[in-house]
C-alpha cells in the first residue's frame, strides 16, 4: 500500500481543487455567470472523463479510507453526467425566473463532490463527510428561490429533518465503531462475517441505525415524508438533481455498508441479526413502493406526483439491498442509472412547462400538450413509460433485475408486492400520457423554448432507449469488477 495514489485519486483531487481552491477565488473576483457556468461545467466534464479513464485502476488510497476504480468510478461518471445535465437545463430555467446566481453552480458541484466521496468511501467517517457535504449543498439549493415561500419552506424542512436523520446515521457509525473497533468497511465486514464479536448487540444496533439514516436520504418509508414537500417546493431544476443523483449517491453508500454488515448465509458472527435486518429492509422496501405509488395516484401536482413516484422507486431499489448479493447490487446499479436519466428527463420537461412564477405545474396544465408540443410530449411519454417499467425502455430491465434478485434471495412475497405496486403505478404514469394526448387543453400556455435543456433531453432519451435495447453495455461493465 502506498500512502498516496495519484492516479486513483485524480478525479477527487481535480474536483476539490477546481471547486475549493480555484473556483471560489474566481467567483470572489469575477462576476460573470457565463464564465462560472462554463468553468464548472468543464470541471464536471473533466472529472467525469478522468474517472472513466482511471476506472481500470483498482486500489485503495489515503490509508484505505477511499477505494478507487470500478464501482466508485462508475458512480463518479454517473454523478458528473447528472450534474452536467442538470446544469444545462438549469441555466435557462434560472434565467427565466431571474434568479441565476453563480452560487447555484458552486453548490451543485459541491454536492457532486460530496456524492463522489460517498461512492469512493471505504470508511465510516468519509461516508459521513460525503453525506453531509451533499446534504448541506442540497439544503441551500432547495431554498434557492429565496423570495418564494415554498422554496424556503422546503429548505428549512429538509434541513431540520435531514439533521435529525444525520444524527441517527452518525450514532449508527459510532456503534459500529464501538462494536468492531474500526471505521474501515473491510474490517467491519471481517468482524461481521467471521469469528466472534464482542458486542453483537452494538453491531446490530449500529447497522439498523445506519440503515435508518440512509433510508432517510433515499426517502424510504417511514422516513419519506419530507420528500413530497421538499421536491414540490424546491426549484424544479434542483428537484431534478436531488431526486436523481442524490438518491443514486445514497445508494452508492448504502450498498457497501449493507454488504459489510449484513452477511448472507450462516456461520457468520452477524447471523444472529442479519435475517431480521434483511426483513426490515424488505418491509421498508415493500411499504415504500406501496405508499409511493398509491399516494401518487391522488396527486394533481406533477412535481408532487413525481416526488411520490421517486419514493416508490426508492422502494424498488431497496429490493436490491434485501438480497445483499452481487446480482442485487448489479440491479441497483442498472436501475439507478436508468432512473437518473428518466427522472431528470421528466423533471426537465416539467421545468420547461412551468411558468417563471412557479405555476403551471398541475396535471391539468398538461392537457393537449401532445398537440401543441408533439416532441416534448413524446419525450415525456417515453419517460413515463420507462418509469412505469414498460419494455423496451430502460426502466423495465432495471426492475426486472431487481425483482429477480429478490426472488433469488427467497423474497417471493416482496416481488409480488413490487409487481402489484408497479401495476398500480401504471395508472398515474399513463394518466399523464392520457392528459397529454387524449384530452383537449382549456387554456394553453406555451412551454419555454428548450435551449440548452434540449441537450439534456436528448441525452436522457437516448440513454433510456439504448439502455433498454442494449442493457448489456452496462451489465458487462459490472462484471469486470
Amino acid at each position, binding site marked *: 500500500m502506498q*500512502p*498516496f495514489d495519484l492516479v486513483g485519486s485524480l478525479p477527487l483531487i481535480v474536483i*476539490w481543487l477546481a471547486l*475549493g*481552491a*480555484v473556483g*471560489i*477565488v474566481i*467567483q*470572489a*473576483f469575477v462576476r460573470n455567470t457565463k464564465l462560472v457556468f462554463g468553468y464548472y461545467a468543464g470541471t464536471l466534464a473533466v472529472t467525469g472523463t478522468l474517472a472513466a479513464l482511471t476506472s481500470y485502476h483498482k486500489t485503495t488510497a489515503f490509508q484505505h479510507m477511499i477505494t478507487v476504480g470500478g464501482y466508485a468510478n462508475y458512480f463518479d461518471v454517473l454523478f458528473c453526467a447528472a450534474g452536467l445535465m442538470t446544469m444545462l437545463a438549469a441555466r435557462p430555467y434560472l434565467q427565466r425566473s431571474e434568479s441565476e446566481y453563480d452560487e447555484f453552480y458552486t453548490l451543485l458541484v459541491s454536492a457532486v463532490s460530496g456524492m463522489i466521496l460517498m461512492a469512493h468511501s471505504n470508511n465510516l467517517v468519509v461516508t459521513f463527510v460525503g453525506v453531509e457535504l451533499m446534504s448541506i449543498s442540497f439544503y441551500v439549493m432547495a431554498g434557492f428561490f429565496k423570495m418564494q415561500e415554498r422554496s424556503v419552506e422546503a429548505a428549512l424542512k429538509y434541513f431540520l429533518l435531514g439533521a435529525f436523520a444525520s444524527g441517527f446515521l452518525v450514532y449508527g457509525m459510532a456503534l459500529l465503531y464501538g462494536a468492531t473497533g474500526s471505521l474501515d468497511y473491510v474490517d467491519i465486514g471481517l468482524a461481521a462475517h467471521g469469528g466472534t464479536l*464482542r458486542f453483537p448487540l452494538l453491531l446490530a444496533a449500529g447497522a439498523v441505525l445506519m440503515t435508518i439514516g440512509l433510508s432517510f436520504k433515499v426517502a424510504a418509508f417511514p422516513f419519506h415524508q419530507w420528500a413530497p414537500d421538499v421536491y414540490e417546493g424546491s426549484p424544479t431544476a434542483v428537484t431534478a438533481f436531488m431526486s436523481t443523483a442524490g438518491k443514486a449517491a445514497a445508494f452508492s453508500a448504502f450498498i457497501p455498508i449493507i454488504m459489510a454488515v449484513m452477511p448472507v448465509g450462516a456461520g457468520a458472527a452477524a447471523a444472529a441479526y442479519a435475517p431480521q435486518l434483511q426483513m426490515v429492509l424488505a418491509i421498508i422496501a415493500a411499504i415504500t413502493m406501496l405508499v409511493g405509488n398509491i399516494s401518487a395516484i391522488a396527486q394533481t401536482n406533477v412535481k408532487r406526483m413525481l416526488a411520490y413516484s421517486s419514493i416508490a422507486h426508492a422502494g424498488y431499489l431497496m429490493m436490491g439491498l434485501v438480497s445483499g448479493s452481487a446480482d442485487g447490487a448489479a440491479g441497483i446499479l442498472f436501475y439507478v442509472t436508468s432512473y437518473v436519466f428518466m427522472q431528470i428527463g421528466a423533471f426537465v420537461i416539467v421545468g420547461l412547462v412551468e411558468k417563471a412564477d412557479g405555476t403551471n405545474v398541475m396535471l391539468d396544465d398538461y392537457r393537449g400538450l401532445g398537440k401543441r408540443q408533439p416532441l416534448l410530449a413524446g419525450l415525456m411519454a417515453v419517460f413515463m413509460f420507462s418509469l412505469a417499467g414498460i419494455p423496451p425502455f430502460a426502466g423495465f430491465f432495471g426492475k426486472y433485475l431487481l425483482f429477480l434478485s429478490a426472488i433469488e434471495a427467497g423474497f417471493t412475497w416482496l416481488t409480488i408486492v413490487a409487481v402489484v405496486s408497479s401495476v398500480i403505478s401504471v395508472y398515474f404514469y399513463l394518466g399523464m400520457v392520457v392528459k397529454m394526448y387524449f384530452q383537449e387543453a382549456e387554456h394553453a400556455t406555451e412551454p419555454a423554448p428548450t435551449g440548452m435543456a434540449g441537450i439534456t433531453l436528448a441525452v436522457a432519451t437516448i440513454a433510456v432507449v439504448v439502455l433498454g435495447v442494449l442493457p448489456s453495455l452496462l451489465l458487462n461493465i459490472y462484471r469486470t469488477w
Partner: protein
Amino acid sequence: MVESYIPLFVMILVGIIFGASNIVLTEILGPKRSTRTKLSTYESGMEPVKSARERFSVKFYLVAMIFILFDIEIVFMYPWAVQFKELGMYGFVAMILFMVLLFSGYIYVVKKGALKWD
C-alpha cells in the same frame, strides 16, 4: 471486556453524586433572605431597561457563522502540530492543501463583503 469499563462507571457515578449533592446541600444549608436588589437580573450590574427579545441584524449571524467556521478549523491544527514530525512530508503537504482551501474560502468571504458591517 465489560470489566475494564467499571472505573468509568464509578467515575460517572461519583460525578452525578457530587453534582446532585451540591445542589441539594446549598438548598438545605443556605440562608434565604431575598430583597428586591437580590432578585434583579444583574445583581451588581446595570439595570435591565427593556425586553431582551430583540431582533438582531442578520449580519450578526453571518459573522458568527464565519467565525465558528474558521475557529473550528484551528482544532485540526493542534493534533497536527503535535504529531508534525511523525506525519512528515505527507502530513505537511496535506495541511498546506487544507490551508489553501481554507484561505480561498476566506478570500471569497472577504470579497463578497460578508464581514463588512454596513
